[in-house]
């Protein structure tokens, strides 16, 4: 479903990503764990075809992100951190607009809106303009917008940031339910508790490189630490110590 091979991204002399490789399959929540600036967003932007890799390759649902971007876009739902919405459109108008951009007919669109309404309890959001939404309401609509075409792959970038407890719970429950329906969810976060609760496997990213790919339990066991947070810090420390050891 998702195959990332030696992906790199450079901006002039600066290397944002270097030799990233991993695979993820349907029915899996794959976490991208890393501090701010680690390269998670750049990687998700490459997977969503918004950025082109400068080296390596990646395929989503069998389509290469660089060679077949339109095919990839038809199969992904993207939730980026900013929760940007068209303020002057109602929730329903937003969903209908994005359904049309995905080439869906009216019948299928209305059916999907009903399903998403039931899943996310959109209710009033469908009739109100997005400009008046709270953060939690915005996040619900952003999720519904990403799921309107029922994509097999969902890319979530820091999707829970700024959410209150209830909205965050809705998000986590939705991710779990999508996994149960054999969707692949790539979940980028720096919140350990979310990784522990949701992710089947994860890639720890730091400085644009993958430090480890494993399940949360494997990661803790490999590190010899007692929890994921300590295991994460140990990995980061090891990465920092390596160049120092090489260069003396």
């Amino acid at each position, binding site marked *: 479903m998702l195959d990332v091979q030696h992906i790199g991204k450079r901006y002039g002399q600066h290397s944002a990503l270097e030799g990233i490789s991993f695979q993820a399959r349907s029915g899996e929540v794959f976490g991208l764990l890393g501090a701010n600036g680690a390269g998670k967003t750049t990687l998700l*932007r490459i997977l*969503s*075809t*918004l*950025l*082109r890799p400068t080296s390596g390759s990646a395929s989503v649902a069998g389509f290469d992100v660089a060679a077949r971007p*339109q*095919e990839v*876009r*038809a199969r*992904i739902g*993207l939730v*980026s951190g*900013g*929760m*940007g*919405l*068209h*303020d*002057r*459109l109602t929730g329903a*108008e937003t969903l209908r*607009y*994005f359904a*049309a*951009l*995905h*080439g869906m007919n009216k019948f299928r669109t209305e059916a999907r809106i009903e399903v998403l309404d039931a899943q996310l309890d959109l209710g009033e959001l469908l009739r109100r*303009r997005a400009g008046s939404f709270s953060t939690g309401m915005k996040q619900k609509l*952003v999720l519904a*917008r*990403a799921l309107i075409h029922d994509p097999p792959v969902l890319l979530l970038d820091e999707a829970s940031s700024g959410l209150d407890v209830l909205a965050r719970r809705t998000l986590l429950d939705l991710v779990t339910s999508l996994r149960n329906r054999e969707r692949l969810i790539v979940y980028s976060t720096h919140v350990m508790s979310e990784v522990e609760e949701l992710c089947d496997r994860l890639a720890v990213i730091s400085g644009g490189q993958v430090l480890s790919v494993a399940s949360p339990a494997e990661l803790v066991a490999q590190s010899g630490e007692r929890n994921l947070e300590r295991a994460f810090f140990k990995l980061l420390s090891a990465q920092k110590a390596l160049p120092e050891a090489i260069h003396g």
Partner: protein
Amino acid sequence: MASIWTVAQQELTATIRDRRTLTSTILIPLLIIPLFTVGLPLLLGTLFGGQAQTRQSVGVIGTLPATLRTQLEADSKTEKGVRLTVIRDPIKAVQSGEVDAALKVTSPLPSVAGQSGTLQLFYKLGNLKAQSGAAGKVRSAVEAYNTALVGRKLSELKLSSALLTPVKLSTVDASNVAEAGSGALAFVIPLFLLQFILAGATAAATDSTAGERERGTFEALLATPTPRSTLLLGKLAATTITALAAAAFSVLGLSLSAPIALLVTPAGQGAAQKATQQAFGGSLALGSGALGTLLLTATSAALLISALLLTLSLLARSVREAQTLIAPLTLLIVLPATLLQFADFLKTGAAIYGMPIVGSMLVILDTVKGQSSGLHLLLSVAGNVLGAGLLVIVATRMFGRESVAFKQ
């Protein structure tokens, strides 16, 4: 796959729900144009008319013949006379505002024809109020006094006063209906139309590009399978339609000017008011052919301006930044439009009509003057469409860049 119209429809919905855009697209063109073409002439007419009904103060040094004094002070059916006051220094009196004008008798004035005298008139030459008021009344009175003296002398000699004017020259307006209606200040009409197109398109262009980026909606939009060229053309269509709406309301404002002028202009106005109204095009008359030409020209200009605005807005990270980039564009319209006031002195070849924007201005000016030509219209439309096409190519390239989706 979503069509261009789907994108345009969404952009138009967002635009229609923005009050600022509605104001710049509908209200301002509908209000400003009739206000300028009818209201301003009426106001100026009232001011000029007001001068006729005001008794101005005129200072005098020396002795005026009694008949001339009477003529200066007398009221007629249409205007009041002046009030004569004795002063010492005419320049000081005028400059201090003590009097509106001053008269100085430098040599004794005759009371019969055959002798001559000199009378100096002092007033601020650049002051329209003094020119149309006190100075105008003094000139008329002196002219009437001279005519009376000569007339009396001719009568004593048993000669007809017609001897004074062997050739009578009368003036007939040879303008066509449209020229006569558009007035000497018709050159402001292209400025109005294109300026409203720019104002109408600006909000839509900036909101649909820099606004998307600022709100963070570009990422989700560009992650859909709709080709970027479709998205861009949809945004261009929406911007052009908004600009055209502004242009249509401007044309509507223009065509409403004449009936509004008839409604609000009281019967029996003074000549000054009528002349002013004519100068400002208060009785502008546009037939259906002229309206069609205006709309076609406006459409092509709207397309070009929209493409230019979208291209510039794609460079900006926020609506405010886009507005800063767009602000100098006003000069692109104002400068050529200002030069149009000298259009009567210019010999314009057909080629100039092919210049984007400038050609449109000339066609609009020709149309309101009833001189439009099919070839000129074709050239101006072709120039604008070609320019828009080139800009769309540039914008498409810019829209394909990675950085276009992100705020930073």
